[in-house]
């Protein structure tokens, strides 16, 4: 039976495990640690134990994983048929992982019946060794169930070691549908992906515990290993100078794989109102992000003013959305929008991990906060410690007087 084991010969009853546990899952009695019924097997106690007395016993039989090869990247297209930037970010990351594993990178490209061939060429130019595609009317608009069926069929046949998805709204619906059909693991919103060269084990790191801890997750006994990654997280990995590819060179790299003829979409899109704000902060070149440190809702107009003066969009942290100061599309972070602007001015933001994960793609971060110990300063390129409102007031004055008004 699987469970948490304490090696009685090693345990010294120091209770570090008890302090490390967020769930009350372990207690010390008679100078010996005992797991309780509240244990959720998160492994925090294992890391905290100074004498390696704790382990998790699992009873899964080892499967033959050696037949699984290659890294697949799901390439989502937009309404116009163009591949979303997150696919290129993942291709870049996949290339680095594939180099360590000496395997191929394969892009999955479901698209409508009237493909131009441009997305395939672009994916190959940016690092895909092969593109598996399908041209089918049932993929317009993209249907998660149709895509999942298509990917599962291919995965059962070709046995990839890893499949990566952008954590777009669609990717977050698609990936779990694939995971449950293939009965494999899926890690959401990874901020780091590394691979063990020898075993091919993918180390998937994501924020956990409300964002104060990072957790590294592995999927040792099932394949494919699957992860979603927010757009912008691997912005630095995207191929900067795509190679030029001729039509002849790409021809043998593109494989068209038909969708099961009997598959019928069960979801119909009747009408769509285009997104407004959400898209604009995700793609903003300049962004002002405000947090609880601005003190009061009455300071919001000042924040809007500094955003205007900088020609920037306005974003905020989760507590501000929860307090109703700004709408959800403004929320920056793991549960909101991941951003990757050239310049991010962070005002009164302390910097919970989930927020930091959402801004890690920003090129330059200027943080203004009263608390010199705030975690935001750990990733800021410029640190401004002081009264946020006063500094912003001065900054607005400087900017508005210095720059000629447009």
């Amino acid at each position, binding site marked *: 039976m699987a469970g948490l084991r304490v090696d009685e010969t090693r345990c010294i009853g120091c209770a570090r495990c008890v302090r490390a546990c967020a769930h009350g899952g372990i207690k010390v009695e008679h100078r010996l640690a005992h797991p309780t*019924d509240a244990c959720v097997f*998160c492994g925090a106690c294992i890391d905290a134990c100074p004498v390696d007395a704790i382990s998790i016993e*699992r009873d899964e039989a080892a499967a033959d994983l050696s037949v699984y090869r290659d890294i697949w990247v799901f390439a989502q297209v937009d*309404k116009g048929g163009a591949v979303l930037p997150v696919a290129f970010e993942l291709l870049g990351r996949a290339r680095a992982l594939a180099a360590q594993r000496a395997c191929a990178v394969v892009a999955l490209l479901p698209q409508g019946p009237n493909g131009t061939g441009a997305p395939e060429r672009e994916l190959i130019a940016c690092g895909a060794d092969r593109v598996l595609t399908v041209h089918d009317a049932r993929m317009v608009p993209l249907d998660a169930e149709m895509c999942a069926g298509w990917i599962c069929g291919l995965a059962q046949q070709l046995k990839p070691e890893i499949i990566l998805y952008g954590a777009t709204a669609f990717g977050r619906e698609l990936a779990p549908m694939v995971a449950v*059909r293939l009965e*494999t*693991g899926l890690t959401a919103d990874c901020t780091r992906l590394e691979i063990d060269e020898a075993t091919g084990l993918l180390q998937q790191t994501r924020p956990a515990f409300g964002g104060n801890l990072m957790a590294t997750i*592995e999927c040792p006994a099932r394949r494919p290993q699957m992860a979603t990654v927010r757009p912008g997280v691997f912005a630095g990995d995207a191929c900067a100078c795509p190679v030029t590819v001729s039509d002849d060179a790409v021809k043998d790299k593109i494989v068209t794989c038909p969708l099961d003829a009997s598959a019928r979409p069960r979801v119909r899109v009747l009408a769509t*109102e285009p997104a407004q704000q959400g898209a604009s902060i995700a793609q903003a070149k300049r962004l002002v992000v405000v947090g609880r440190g601005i003190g009061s809702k009455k300071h919001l107009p000042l924040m809007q003013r500094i955003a205007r003066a900088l020609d920037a969009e306005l974003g905020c942290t989760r507590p501000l959305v929860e307090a109703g100061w700004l709408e959800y599309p403004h929320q920056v972070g793991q549960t909101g929008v991941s951003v990757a602007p050239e310049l991010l001015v962070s005002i009164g933001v302390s910097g919970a991990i989930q927020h930091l994960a959402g801004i890690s793609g920003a090129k330059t971060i*200027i943080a203004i906060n009263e608390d010199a110990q705030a975690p935001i300063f750990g990733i800021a390129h410029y640190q401004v410690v002081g009264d946020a409102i006063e500094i912003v007031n001065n900054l607005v004055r400087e900017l508005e007087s210095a720059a000629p008004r447009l």
Partner: protein
Amino acid sequence: MHIVVCVKAVPASTEVKMDPVTNTIVRDGGDAVVNPFDATALELALRLREKRRAAGEDTRISVLSMGIPATERLLRDCIARGATDALLLSDRAFAGADTLATTHALTCGIRELGMPDLVLCGKMAVDGDTAQIGPELAGALDMACVTDVRALVACEHDAVTVYAGGDAGVSLIEATLPCVLTVAKEAATLRMPSIAGVLAAEHAAVDVRGAAEVGADAARIGLSGSPTQVVRSFVPEQQAAGVEVSGDTTAQAKQLVRIIEEVA
């Protein structure tokens, strides 16, 4: 019509604090609450039932959860707010479940309740943020699926119409029944329980079942049924310090103007 609403007990505060000296988690307890997204899902179910009742049709709303025995209190509260019945899957064998193992357990629970026309869940849980359970349930139950539902427009005998968020914006979507819907928090706010509801809930039976009683496959639930494992949890390291912009607030503002001009 039969609707199953899946709910998860989450900590009242998701702000887990770290002790800066020992680098360990400070547990400040706090009662468990129904995941706010799931509470919205229940409210949408209740509103749908009212609409159908006006048309003279019956609707059964079952709430389903997998959790520790204390979760029974939360399910009773769901009954006080209008749910018809409740099933709690509680067993040590369920502990340590990742989303795949949770999906198997909930699937068994749903079969136990009787196959519904609609399964509603929150878009995600505030303590896990994975947003995987809804689409995984749809896959396991072979149902249609719509995620990030903002409003329920209509529900006929064979189809449901909703407004839902997606990458291209908010869409009006029609899906075939049976269907799994995952619900955005802003879609509605769960009503308070009525006095009659509270009194009725006091005597209502919350069905509590173990893994074997719902026919769950021991190899597909809990720790054993979870393909993913947390191998390490750690406090993220701080990166190298950035440039400090010092002086009084006027001097700081002046320097910032220069920095902004330089970098962008």
